[in-house]
C-alpha cells in the first residue's frame, strides 16, 4: 500500500482552507451569507428604517423646516382629501392592473405550460420576455404614440368605421378623456402591457408543476372543466398568481413614470413621493407616502396567507 492512500500530494494554503471549510461546513455557510446579509441588513433595512423614522417627523407650517419630534401629524395628512385621493387612485389602479394581468396571463401561461412544446415553447418565452429587453421608457413613449389622438389606434378605429365606439367610450367619465393617451384607460393599458411578463412567468411556472393526472383525477371524479379549474387548477396555481400579483401590484403602486407620460396628470403615490421629497422639502410626508405601499402589500400578503393562497406550496 502506498503512503499516499489518504493524503494526496497536493497541499498549500488554498487546499488547507478548503479542507478546513469541508470539515466546518457551518463556517462555509457563514462566509457565504455574511456579505449579502450585511447588504440586506444595513443598506436595505437601514434605509427602510430611516424612511420610517422620517415619516414620524413633521414639517413646520411656517418655516417649512422639518421638526425632529415624534408626531403622527404627517400620517394624518395622508387622509386629507387630496392625498387620500392619491392613495385610493393608486390602489384602485394597481388592483385593476393586477386583476386584468391575471386574467390575460392565465390562458397564455396555461397554453405555454400544457401545450407548447419545443419550438413553440421558445417562441413563448421570447414573446413574453422580448418586451422586457427593450427600454422601459421606449415602451412607454411608443404607447403614448399608439394611444395619441392622432395615433395608430385612433387611425385603426377610423379605418374600421368604429370611431363612434371609441368616442362613446371616451365620453365615459373618470375612465375616459380627450383621447386614450390622456385617459386613465391609457394609463391602465400601459401598466398592463409593461407588467404583464411579471404575471405570466410565475403563473406559467406554477402551472408547470401541476401534474396532468391531477386534472384527470378531478374530471374522473365528476368535475366538469369549469369545476376542475375552480377546485384544482386555480388553487394549485394560486401561489404563482399571488407571486405574479405581488409583482404587478407593487410595481404599479410604486411607479411614477408611466402616469406622468400617459394619463390625465392626476398623481399616483410614486409621483407624490417624488414631488414631496424634491423642491418641496417635505420629506416626512414623502416618507409617509412611501410607507403606504409597504403597509398595503403587508396587508395583502397577510390576507392571502389567511385565505390559504400558499397552502399548495
Amino acid at each position, binding site marked *: 500500500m502506498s503512503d499516499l492512500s489518504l493524503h494526496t500530494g497536493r497541499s498549500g494554503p488554498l487546499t488547507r482552507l478548503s479542507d478546513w471549510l469541508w470539515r466546518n461546513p457551518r463556517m462555509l455557510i457563514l462566509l457565504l451569507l455574511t456579505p449579502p446579509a450585511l447588504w440586506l441588513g444595513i443598506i436595505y433595512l437601514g434605509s427602510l428604517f430611516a424612511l420610517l423614522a422620517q415619516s414620524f417627523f413633521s414639517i413646520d407650517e411656517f418655516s417649512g423646516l422639518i421638526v425632529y419630534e415624534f408626531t403622527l401629524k404627517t400620517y394624518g395628512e395622508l387622509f386629507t382629501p*387630496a392625498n387620500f385621493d392619491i392613495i385610493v387612485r393608486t390602489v384602485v389602479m394597481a388592483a385593476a392592473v393586477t386583476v386584468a394581468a391575471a386574467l390575460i396571463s392565465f390562458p397564455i401561461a396555461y397554453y405555454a405550460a400544457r401545450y407548447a412544446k419545443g419550438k413553440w415553447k421558445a417562441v413563448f418565452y421570447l414573446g413574453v420576455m422580448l418586451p422586457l429587453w427593450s427600454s422601459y421608457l421606449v415602451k412607454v413613449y411608443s404607447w403614448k404614440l399608439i394611444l395619441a389622438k392622432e395615433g395608430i389606434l385612433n387611425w385603426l378605429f377610423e379605418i374600421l368605421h368604429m370611431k363612434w365606439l371609441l368616442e362613446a367610450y371616451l365620453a365615459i367619465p373618470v375612465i375616459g378623456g380627450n383621447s386614450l393617451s390622456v385617459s386613465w384607460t391609457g394609463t391602465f393599458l400601459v401598466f398592463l402591457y409593461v407588467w404583464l411578463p411579471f404575471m405570466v412567468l410565475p403563473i406559467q411556472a406554477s402551472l408547470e408543476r401541476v401534474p396532468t393526472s391531477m386534472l384527470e383525477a378531478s374530471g374522473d371524479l365528476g368535475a366538469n372543466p369549469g369545476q376542475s379549474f375552480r377546485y384544482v387548477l386555480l388553487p394549485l396555481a394560486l401561489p404563482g398568481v399571488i407571486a405574479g400579483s405581488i409583482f404587478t401590484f407593487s410595481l404599479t403602486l410604486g411607479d411614477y413614470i408611466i402616469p*406622468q407620460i400617459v394619463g390625465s396628470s392626476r398623481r399616483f403615490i410614486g409621483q407624490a413621493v417624488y*414631488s414631496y421629497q424634491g*423642491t418641496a422639502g417635505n420629506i416626512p410626508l414623502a416618507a409617509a407616502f412611501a410607507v403606504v405601499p409597504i403597509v398595503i402589500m403587508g396587508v395583502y400578503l397577510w390576507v392571502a396567507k389567511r385565505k390559504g393562497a400558499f397552502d399548495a406550496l
Partner: protein
Amino acid sequence: MTSFLKSCTALVATAVVASQSLAADMITEIGPGEGQVNIVAWPGYIERGETVADFDWVTKFEQATSCKVNVKTANTSDEMVALMNEGGFDLVTASGDASLRMIAGKRVQPVNIDLIPSWPSVDERLKEAPWHYVGGVHYGTPYMWGPNVLMYSTEAFAEAPTSWSVVFEETTLADGKSNQGRVQAYDGPIHIADAANYLMYHKPELGITSPYELNQEQYDAALDLLRVQRGLVSRYWHDAFIQIDDFKNEGIVASGSWPFQVNLLQGDGAKVASTIPQEGATGWADTTMMHAEAENPNCAYMWMEHTLSSNLQSDLSVWFGANPAVPAACTDGRGMQTAEGCTKNGMDEFERIKFWQTPVSKCESQGTCVPYYRWVSDYIGVIGGR
C-alpha cells in the same frame, strides 16, 4: 432616534458654519490655472461640439487656458443643490430657485467682479438681479435667461392670442371650437405663479405685487383659477419633448411653453408661433455661481470670463432658444445669434417677465406668504380634481 438625528443635524450645521468663515474672503487676483474646472450644469448648457459639431464653446477655452472642463449635468434644481452640498465642484449654473437657497446655505462664495474683465458687457437689467445679488454682494455672473411664452397653433388662431385667458378660461377659439381638451399647462407647482400673474392683471383688487409672494387670499384665488383650468386640460406637460409630441399628435393648440419647444416645432415645420400676452409672463434666469470651497478658483474665474466674452452667449442662445446675459452677443457676430433671433427668444420682453424664485413664508412684499411646500401639495390636489 429623534435626538440622534437632531444632533447629527446640529453637527453638520456647525461644520458648515465653521468652514464658511474660512472661505468667506473673496479672491483679489487670478493666479495660474489649476488645470481643470468642475461644473454642475443643466443638460445642453455646456457643449463641446459632441452633440452637434457647430455648437462648441469649450474646446477653445481649454486650448487657451489649459483648464480642462469637467461637466456634471443635473436635471432638477434639487439635484444641483444636492451635488453642491456634496462638494467637489467649482461652479454651478443655478436657476433662481436654487441660487438663493445656496446663498442662504453658504454653499457659494461671493464673486469679485473686478476680476472679470467682461463684466461691464453684462445686461444692465441682470447685473444686480435679486437672485444672485444679495446684500450688496455679487454671488455669480448671469448666464442665460428666457421667458415662459404662450405657444399657439397658427391654424387655430388667426392672430396671436392677446391674453393668457385662452389657457385659463373656457373660450371658443378662432376655429369655432372650444379650447376644452386642447390646451396644456405646466405640470409643476410653479404654474401657480402663472395663475397669480394672470390675476395680477385681471383682478388688481387682490393686491398681488409678485406672483411668487402670495398671501392666503391671493393664493386661494390662484388655486380657484387653476381648478377652472383643470377642466380644460387633459394632461399637464412635464417634459419638453412630450409637449412637442402633444402639439403634433394630441391636437393641442395652446400652452405655456419655452422658446426651446417653439424653435424645435417650427424647425420641424409645425404651424406654431409664440407670444407674450398682455399680462406678461413668468421666466427663468440662470447664474454661474462658485462653490464656497472651490478647489480650482483660478480656472473658475477664467471660465466665468469666458462665458461672457466668447461665442458661448451667442451660440448657446441659439442652441437653447434663450437670451444671452450679454446683449452684444445678439448683434456683434461672435456666434450664430442675430438680432431677430434674440427678439424671437423674448430679449425685448425683459420688463414683462417675472423671474422664477422660491416662494418662502417670510416674504418681502407682505410679511407672511404661502411657502413652496404648500404650493406642491395644493397643486397636486388641484390636478387631482380637489
